[in-house]
């Protein structure tokens, strides 16, 4: 692998790169969630699950330092959130590009590398060559070489998603925050992207926090699951949290966890029961 930090096998002993302690968040006058404790070590793959509007994206924004906490402590890479710059990679929720946008995928990835620098890039020099090499390398890592030179507006949703993951990875972050990266992907692409993220996480020691709605494609890559519901968080290894009892309680609708032939768990909702809609299970206050 090309990554700088090979951490395979050292996962249990790694110091936490991300730490929430009794954190609470208020948006628009109401508390979304409170008393959230979470520790993520280097090379750990954590999924954030929960119903719509419960504050999953807000949790990601807290880690990015774009949303202040109302209570508790947040520490990111030993500092305050928002101060780690390129050491945190971010993929926002539901982003697609205008079909008429003619900018190439490589240029979008490249902006992740040097987009925060002033001026215009110099088209010559050793630095330029190094940067081009890095962009190519990361695009190859996510398997998007074939579409990187096409206008990004003309790439399919899955190809765009891979390029955007490349953009988040290009500065070799230590924490990767992915907000619903599997959204709008077909099943093979979901498992391919999930496997890709799992590989980056475990082989390069990058801590991954992934917001997801469908836990199935990522389930066997996960080290830990955070379920946000009813204003609090339940946190634990998948074998403890991903159970019929816990999920049914959190989603307030019958959810079953079954085993496939090879023993992998699969989460299934009951088709007859209408989901509890849009319930931001917020605590008034």
């Amino acid at each position, binding site marked *: 692998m090309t990554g700088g930090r090979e951490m395979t096998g050292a996962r249990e002993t790694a110091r936490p790169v991300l730490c929430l302690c009794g954190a609470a968040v208020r948006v628009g006058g109401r508390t979304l969630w409170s008393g959230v404790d979470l520790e993520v070590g280097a090379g750990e793959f954590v999924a954030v699950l929960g119903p719509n509007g419960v504050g999953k994206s807000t949790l990601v924004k807290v880690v990015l330092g774009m949303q202040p906490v109302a209570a508790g402590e947040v520490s990111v890479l030993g500092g305050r959130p*928002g101060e780690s710059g390129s050491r945190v990679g971010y993929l926002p929720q539901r982003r697609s590009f205008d079909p008429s946008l003619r900018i190439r995928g490589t240029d979008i990835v490249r902006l992740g590398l040097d987009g925060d620098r002033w001026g215009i890039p110099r088209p010559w020099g050793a630095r330029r060559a190094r940067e081009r090499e890095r962009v190519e390398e990361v695009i190859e890592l996510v398997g998007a070489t074939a579409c990187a030179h096409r206008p990004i507006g003309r790439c399919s949703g899955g190809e765009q998603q891979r390029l955007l993951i490349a953009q988040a990875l290009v500065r070799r972050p230590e924490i990767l925050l992915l907000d619903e990266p599997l959204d709008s992907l077909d099943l093979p692409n979901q498992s391919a992207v999930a496997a890709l993220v799992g590989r980056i996480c475990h082989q390069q020691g990058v801590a991954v926090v992934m917001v997801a709605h469908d836990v199935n494609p990522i389930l066997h890559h996960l080290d830990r699951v955070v379920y946000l519901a009813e204003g609090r968080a339940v946190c634990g290894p998948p074998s403890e949290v991903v159970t019929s009892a816990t999920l049914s309680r959190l989603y307030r609708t019958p959810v079953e966890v079954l085993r496939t032939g090879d023993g992998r768990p699969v989460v299934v909702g009951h088709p007859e029961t209408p989901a509890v809609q849009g319930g931001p299970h917020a605590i008034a206050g």
Partner: protein
Amino acid sequence: MTLATAGPSAWSQPFFHHALLAGTFIALAAGLVGYFLVLRAQVFTGDALSHVAFTGAMAALAGGYDLRLGLFAGCVGAGLLLAGVGRRGRADDVVTGSAFAWILGLGSFFLTLYTSSRSGVTGGGAGTTVLFGSIFGLNGGQTLVAVLIGAGICVAVLLIARPLLFATLDEAVAAARGVPVRVLGLGFLALVGACAGEATQAVGSLLLLGLLAAPAGAAVRLADRPFLGLGLSAGLAVLEMWTGLAISALVPTLPPSFAIMAAATAVYVATFLFARLRAVGPAVVTME
């Protein structure tokens, strides 16, 4: 300053040299600013500023100040105001449309105020100047100011180009990376305002939008690399400016604003033909 009439001998006249010099920098600024205007889908803002350009200039005249003072103050002020309203919380079309119609009405009020206080002929002339531009009427001092402001706008756009591009294409990630997205948006619209004031001198407030949008629109269609597109937009704008000025100098009946806009429109239309030709070729993606 005598009102210059173009003709075959225009090449050697100082007014033509002034126009060429000022026009080059005006076009450079308009090309660079216009590229981001098109990418950010804020071309309508440029249209709005053309109304303000007229009213600002007329207000300055009515108040007894230099026309350009009102032009720049009005455009930059309106640019900042529009940035304050924000990209998302934009007022709806009806509100914006009525507001700018009202601003234009205000401009005609100032024009009347100005003409009734002075001799009617020059007042009407000032109105026409602002509406249609008077690039052949620039004297040495005015040319110098236009060149300096144009160069300043270019330097400023190039300085913020990369983070602005990042914020334009990918606002959420840019913000998370620490790019000052809001400040950049504000600064950019201030630059659009300055550029609108600058370009009004060349093509007038009515045709301003063409100079901002046509070369940039062509560049966006032609180039798939952002900084190549930026350069192409500026290059096309300068070429169209030169072509327009040359045509206007050769054929005195064609005013420079018309000739510049004709060149700009021709290039823009040509990009559609180019896209069609490319679509016929082998390595193609389907046309919309």
